[in-house]
């Protein structure tokens, strides 16, 4: 032992700046390599997931009365007419039914890697960063994205087993707009969406003032559809946070004052406003998602993306 200590102290005495650098560099390199190796693990994009019946009917609608409500973070008073809105997000099963029906009657076509359909275009003002969206066919859903919860065999769309009652994702704003329009409905406006989520008071979340992991599906909320060491946070079935217990995971009934589910978390929801500001070609989304922190689940928080964007954490519901 004495010999080891003397050798070490001798080395220390002889050490020069480069040897310090070398040691530090090696330590940093080991850390970096470990990190990179851990980061290269492949992800199963369609892992086996538990199947739960939440008991919430995705075909249900709710009536929202006409009148004033508090809009936005700073509680501006706004008004809407009376309207109806879906109680849940559109599910994968509902959207697949639409795709098959619309493919059969020609509303939806297959073009390359996408199911596409006609959109009449946006007004164009030539503003900085404005996207030109002329009348034409636009992508509704990608056909071969492994993160999609449906498959396409060249003629027919089908739901991946287990995902039937999950919110439809990987759908563009055009695809959401087309779904609602196909049945004679429409996407809710931003005002309608916020009113349906908030009711008549100034609450930040659909269920009230505070958020816990039992209220909604958000990043690291530890629900049964989450594995942060591999695939991360997946969607939960629509209406999951309704007070039921799922294999020991107890939820809180997180419905909005008007009885809507998943108005915070799970998936961002497209709203229907086109060019709310002149030259703003993005489409707005609300509600936060399974992949965002709780702060993004506050009712007034906006996200936006071009209407052709689709992602595994973006869905929608319809209004009428």
């Amino acid at each position, binding site marked *: 032992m004495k010999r080891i200590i003397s050798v070490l102290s001798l080395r220390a005495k002889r050490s020069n700046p480069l040897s310090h650098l070398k040691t530090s560099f090696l330590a940093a390199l080991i850390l970096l390599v470990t*990190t990179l190796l851990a980061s290269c693990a492949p*992800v199963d994009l369609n892992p086996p997931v538990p199947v739960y019946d939440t008991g919430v009917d995705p075909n249900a609608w709710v009536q929202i009365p006409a009148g004033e409500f508090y809009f936005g973070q700073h509680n501006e008073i706004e008004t809407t007419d009376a309207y109806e809105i879906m109680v849940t997000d559109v599910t994968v099963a509902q959207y697949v039914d639409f795709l098959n029906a619309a493919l059969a009657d020609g509303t939806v076509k297959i073009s390359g890697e996408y199911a596409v359909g006609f959109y009449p275009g946006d007004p164009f003002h030539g503003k900085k960063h404005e996207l030109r969206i002329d009348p034409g066919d636009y992508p509704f859903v990608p056909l071969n994205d492994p993160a999609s919860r449906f498959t396409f065999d060249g003629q027919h769309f089908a739901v991946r087993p287990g995902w039937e009652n999950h919110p439809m994702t990987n759908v563009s704003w055009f695809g959401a707009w087309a779904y609602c329009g196909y049945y004679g409905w429409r996407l809710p406006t931003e005002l309608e969406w916020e009113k349906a989520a908030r009711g008549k008071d100034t609450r930040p979340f659909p269920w009230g003032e505070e958020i816990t992991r039992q209220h909604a599906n958000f990043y690291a909320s530890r629900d049964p559809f989450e594995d942060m060491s591999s695939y*991360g946070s997946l969607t939960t079935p629509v209406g999951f946070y309704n007070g039921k217990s799922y294999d020991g995971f107890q939820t809180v009934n997180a419905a909005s004052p008007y009885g809507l589910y998943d108005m915070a978390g799970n998936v961002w929801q497209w709203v229907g406003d086109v060019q709310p500001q002149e030259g703003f070609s993005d489409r707005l989304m609300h509600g936060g998602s399974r992949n965002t922190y709780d702060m993004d689940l506050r009712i007034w928080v906006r*996200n936006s993306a071009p209407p052709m964007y689709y992602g595994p954490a973006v869905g929608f519901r319809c209004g009428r």
Partner: protein
Amino acid sequence: MQFLKSRFNYLFTTTKGLILVAIAMIALETAIWGMLSGPMAEMGVREIVIKALGMKIVQAEREGRIIILYHSIAMAVVAIETYMITGLLTMREFYKKAVRVLITVGYLMAMIFGMGFAYFGHNWAFHGLYITGLALIFFAGVLLTIALNPWDPAYRLPSPAGRGAGGEGDYARTQSGIDLERAAFFTTALTTVISAIFGAVPGSYFGNGFEVFLAENIIRLPEKTTMEYSVIGHLHIMLALIAIMITLIIGRWLNFRGLLHKIAMPLMILGCIVLNLGVWGVVTPLEPVAHMIIYVGATPSMLAALLLLIWSWSTLIKEGTAHLARPTFLQKLGALLRDPLKFGPTWQMLFMNFTTSGVGIFMAIKLDDIFRLWPAREERIELTGHWHALSAIIATIILMYYGDMIGLKGKIRQVYGWAIIFLSDIALGAVTVFEMKRLFISEAEQQPLVNGLMYAIDSGLGMLLLLLAIVMVWRLIDLFKPKGRWTEEATHELAEEVAK
């Protein structure tokens, strides 16, 4: 009583004591409020801290809280830079004292009462005291600008004739003897004071009704009000000015001089003025071309920083190989790296091009082709990551100068310096990859990469904070010693320790 008086005098009347207090305040605030976000929030630590400290968190006020948090930390950083400037540059004693008193009282009031107001219920007296603190800092800035007046005959540099290397003739000056380095400090101070108004006016406007917003959340909206543009301009320019000021401070500490100094200082002045004009132009009809003016202004400023880097590295190499007749490449490299506290600041400036400038330029060039095709939240991550990285780099440069200031020597100096460089660069490199991850990985597949990056970020920053905590505890223990290091520090001014 004498025990307390002597420590108080050290902490609140000497340059190094004042800097120590400000670093300790930032460290304390970072330690507490850092537990409200990031991995601590996911682990449930946030809720414990909120309950334990009795914080009152209102969801709708998150943006307002964050703005006060950023300001309270930024004010302490501005105070540290001010202490450094007043310690490094000659100025009349009245101004030196007045500036220090005002900014010390100001940042402590802004920090204590601002955070008290934001996180512990709305005590309106606290809000008033917070605003008073900010106003005092502004006034300190005005006085500092006056104190730095480069046209004052007392601060002119004499003719270079007859002076040797390292003499005043080696520094940038005009024909009439105006010290251009002082002019650069003056320009930066002056433009900082003016740019503060661009935050103060909309701050008063929005704060009156508390309609606060974070700039990154409205970045895509094509229609912004003048007040909103003013806030966006303010936050961009203030951080840039803090970065310019620390570059000048590091140059002074290292005794930047010679031909490159003579080229760099006019560039710094020009860049600073044009950069500010561009940012101020955001609130004028010049808005459509403001970005172009900003790029034009940023170029000479960054070029000046590059010249400092070249000079500093070549000086380190020359000094480290002076005893060798024909040094090899490795010997030169060894000389360059032998003192991490002298090498580190300029290295961090270079590294900044990877984490901040490079990312920013790439985003600007590819904005419509790539970044605006993604959701706005992705862009938010890029924007906030971008300026968090710049802020952290500035903090590491300050810490390295502080390490030299307190006389770290030998192995401790090596460990302290290299730990700051490696830990921060690993963390900030990971932040940069995190910002840009959508370029090479889809949202569905990102989790393992995100985990890996988070380990790198959290462990890097965590260990850096631990290092800072060790230094702070050491300094605290030192204060209890009758002949501690603090007694020595109290008698040395920064200007005396400038490299020869």
